[in-house]
């Protein structure tokens, strides 16, 4: 049981960190770019919001499989096999949770407008400098929302995990799978403990986020 909890936390933390790293420039680009084909990228990023996780998992499995071109490339170049491994889960989670991190950050960047960046430019800040010293701190609430949503969605994912990760203890058996397992085996006590823990944990996480946002809102308002 502890194994599943730790694995889930490890997966969600790693996924969130990766998403913040790749989501930030992506969100900035989506917020600033004016070209028409930006919407295509935007739609691709948003796809996991509407796609059934099993469909996403199915395609990911196909792409990652050792028989596919991509799978062969991964195996030969990095010596990695993704299906039914922890690494595969991370890749799947990153794709699955991408919109939940990118959207709030993008909204925060858009809400900034161009004014603070222009002000910073007249105060001698180079483009990178003004991104780091002005855009990032001012978009902080968006980063908080994105991180919390990304983390929570990764913790809660089931379909994608089942499709590409299966149910290997210590490797791919995360909480949601463990709960499913317990219910299947009529182990109600364990299912109750895990589900109750998830419920309380999720509630506390959202509550904490809202309290922090409120505090920042008072500071910045």
């Amino acid at each position, binding site marked *: 049981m502890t194994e599943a909890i730790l694995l889930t936390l490890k997966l969600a933390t790693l996924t969130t960190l990766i998403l913040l790293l790749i989501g930030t420039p992506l969100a900035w680009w989506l917020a600033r770019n004016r070209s028409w084909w930006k919407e295509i990228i935007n739609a691709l990023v948003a796809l996991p919001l509407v796609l059934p996780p099993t469909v996403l998992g199915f395609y990911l499995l196909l792409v990652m499989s050792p028989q596919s071109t991509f799978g062969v490339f991964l195996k030969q170049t990095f010596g990695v096999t993704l299906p039914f491994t922890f690494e595969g889960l991370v890749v799947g989670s990153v794709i699955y949770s991408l919109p939940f991190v990118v959207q709030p950050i993008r909204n925060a960047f858009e809400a900034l407008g161009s004014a603070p960046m222009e002000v910073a*430019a007249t105060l*001698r800040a180079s483009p990178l400098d003004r991104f780091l010293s002005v855009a990032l701190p001012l978009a902080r609430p968006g980063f908080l929302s994105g991180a919390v949503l990304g983390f929570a969605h990764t913790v809660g994912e089931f379909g994608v995990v089942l499709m590409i990760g299966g149910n290997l203890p210590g490797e791919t058996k995360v909480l949601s799978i463990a709960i499913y397992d317990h219910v299947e085996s009529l182990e109600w006590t364990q299912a109750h403990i895990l589900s109750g823990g998830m419920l309380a944990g999720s509630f506390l996480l959202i509550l904490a986020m809202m309290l922090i946002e409120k505090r920042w809102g008072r500071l910045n308002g």
Partner: protein
Amino acid sequence: MSTLAACFKGQVGDFRLDIEFSIPAQGVTALFGPSGCGKTTLLRCIAGLTRLPDGSLSLNGDIWQHGRTFVPTHKRPIGYVFQEPGLFAHLNVINNLTYGMRRAGIAGRDTQDLEELTRLMGINHLLERRVQALSGGEKQRVAIARALLMKPRILLMDEPLSALDQDNKNEIMPYLEQLHAQLEIPVLYVTHDRREVERLADRILLLRNGALLAQGEIGEIMTRPDLPFASAQDAVTVLDGKVLHFDARYGLSTLQIDGGSLEVPDTLGPTGVYKRLRIAATDVSLALNLDHSSSILNRLPAVIWKILPTGGPSLNVLLRVGNMGEGNALLASVTRKSVETMDLRTGQQVYAQIKGASLLGSQTTSKPRTQHMTPTTGHG
């Protein structure tokens, strides 16, 4: 003399800019015109915030834009004050102030400059405050100080007062006038408010529909018969007077203007200092003879140069001060009836009667700004 030379021709959105000018880079130059005439666009082009492909721009010979050369905004030695103060919400006042300083390579928070400027702008007690706790006027003063602390070579101000309510405007105006008197660097000041121009500007670039309509010294532009200022119902004359002496017995200062002298209540400063006078056309009346029976202190001989319709029941009579009309231009508002009964005509010699109380100098200028100021003996 140092010069700001600019040439911007081209489309910005659905708006066409076609402006070329070269002005001495000193004092305050107002970019004046109605909303949508291109003032802000021009200022943004000068700052490099908007890029017109075929523009060219140089300050004192340093090229900021020409052909393929385009110095990005953050590498131009400018200070920019926006309409909205634009203080960074995540930084407190002192960190807002030092944001630009540090990047301009000027030492940090305990410098004498910072100390002096924050005192001058009346914000030295606010340094540790969060910017959300400031009033609109305080925010704009911090923004102005923040721009000046970088020691820019030119200060660009885009309607810095227009986002403020009247109280905040009145609060900030004296600070701007102080700056005007003390600043060494040239200022470009965008505004559509004529009162701000009268109080602050030394020189005007008059814009209309993206083009330059006229440019010149403030005193000249306000009284030029071919421009709308002189024929406005609330027209004013703006002129610079040199303090000649102070009469302690009556509490009156004597100011020398081009073609005469004026007596103004109050001490206006030491002898030799130049003061700006603002005389409303409605505070000037005309007499055919020198009339000592009235309480009006200042009577100047003048010659009628032009009579301008205002669209109202009054006409604006444009005068030249002096027996031969050799001095400053002066506007007088006279009813059409008076013009007919007095039979006022161009070229006629009259006496301009100026109500002393209307001559309160609004500010000090440390240097003479009108080049054609010639010493003459007083007539009034």
